[in-house]
């Protein structure tokens, strides 16, 4: 598979809808996907991908490689925020640095799903374990983010403070994780038959729903672009540099672990993407003095489109090179 083939994959149905949405907003169109529809489709995508992951995990079984991937992903979800925090402190104060660092430790589910879609198009398989890994990467990054904040924040605390139980619940039990892990478990318990009856829903209409969702993501990212003017070059650079750095680390680790090309690619995407839904929601409560007008746009309007346009083809190409 050469570069034109790769590029072609990016102009196949789902991805271009992201740009249609973004361009429409930049041209001041009134295009808007209703709020509840966004949530529905995002839950649908998590349910579908979770179920598929579970079925695949059922087929592959839980072996040593699977366990290793899960452990490494959880660890890295805690380590990434630490070096991100160090870098961000050059320009940001403690709360904003901690919140943004946490976002980069976690994963963008849509980037992950779009990456999976590319593999599907190319006929390259990847393991259900990667989906389980995605679910596991959220909590460590949230927890490390909050620990960094609490350790370095000098401002006197207000009366309102999450205790550790609340924090854990926020980190492990948000709706997205529940749907993803829940349907992963259902998939794991299902046999061939269960897979077949769910296929038209979790498989058949999947690309179309993903197209619709990417249209929405384009609209939302377009609306958040404005916030970047105030963010300045440092943050724009950060939103591009960190995915590249994390991708290099991931590709190295994947090679070292001997992952298959499909797994290596998805592994890279887990590291290189940043969360703009679940982690920001947790940060809102746990680090209230950080500004969501900073940490959301960096992950959503820089890193996300960067990964979709440049990152995914690049990571894919690099993974292919190494495995050739």
């Amino acid at each position, binding site marked *: 598979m050469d570069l034109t083939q790769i590029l072609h994959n990016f102009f196949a149905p789902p991805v271009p809808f992201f740009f249609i949405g973004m361009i429409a907003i930049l041209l001041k169109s009134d295009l808007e996907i209703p709020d509840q529809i966004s949530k529905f489709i995002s839950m649908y995508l998590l349910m579908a991908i979770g179920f598929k992951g579970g079925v695949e995990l059922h087929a592959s079984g839980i072996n040593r490689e699977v366990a290793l991937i899960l452990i490494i992903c959880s660890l890295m979800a805690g380590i990434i925020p630490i070096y991100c925090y160090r870098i961000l402190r050059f320009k940001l104060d403690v709360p904003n640095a901690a919140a943004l660092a946490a976002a980069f430790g976690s994963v963008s589910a849509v980037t992950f799903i779009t990456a999976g879609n590319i593999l599907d198009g190319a006929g390259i398989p990847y393991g259900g374990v990667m989906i389980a890994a995605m679910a596991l990467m959220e909590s460590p990054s949230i927890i490390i983010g909050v620990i960094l904040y609490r350790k370095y924040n000098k401002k006197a605390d207000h009366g*309102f403070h999450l205790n550790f139980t609340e924090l854990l619940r926020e980190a492990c039990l948000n709706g997205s994780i529940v749907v993803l892990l829940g349907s992963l478990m259902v998939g794991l318990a299902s046999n061939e038959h269960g897979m077949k009856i769910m296929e038209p829903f979790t498989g058949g209409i999947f690309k179309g729903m993903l197209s619709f969702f990417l249209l929405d993501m384009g*609209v939302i990212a377009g*609306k*958040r672009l404005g916030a970047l003017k105030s963010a300045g070059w440092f943050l724009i650079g950060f939103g591009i540099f960190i995915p590249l750095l994390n991708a290099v680390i991931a590709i190295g680790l994947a090679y070292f672990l001997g992952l298959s090309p499909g797994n290596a690619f998805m592994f890279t995407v887990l590291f290189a993407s940043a969360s703009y839904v*679940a982690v920001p*929601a947790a940060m809102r409560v746990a680090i209230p003095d950080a500004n969501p007008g900073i940490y959301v746009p960096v992950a959503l309007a820089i890193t996300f489109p960067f990964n979709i346009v440049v990152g995914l083809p690049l990571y894919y190409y690099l993974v292919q090179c190494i495995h050739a």
Partner: protein
Amino acid sequence: MQNNIKRIEIITDAIYQSRLIKLLDDTGIPGYTIFKDVAGKGLKGEKDGHGLGSGFKNVYILIYCELELVKKLTDAVRPVIETFGGVCVVSDAHWIIHN
């Protein structure tokens, strides 16, 4: 018109709604009304209601209560608003019907 009461309005991030409601319940006020999916702009920037989580949304809570309860209520709400941002405003009103 008899039956003077106070009308308290609280606007803050949608994400803190459940915490705020818990505090309200603890003060023992008899009732409140909640408007979800409210957008707006304030010191913490624009909440345009867009996006997936409730990150960029507000909640608006309306409480009718006796004058005596106002202080207790605002004392309960103050730490949330001061930590997380938002506004709390009071005005005068009268019961007409309260079943």
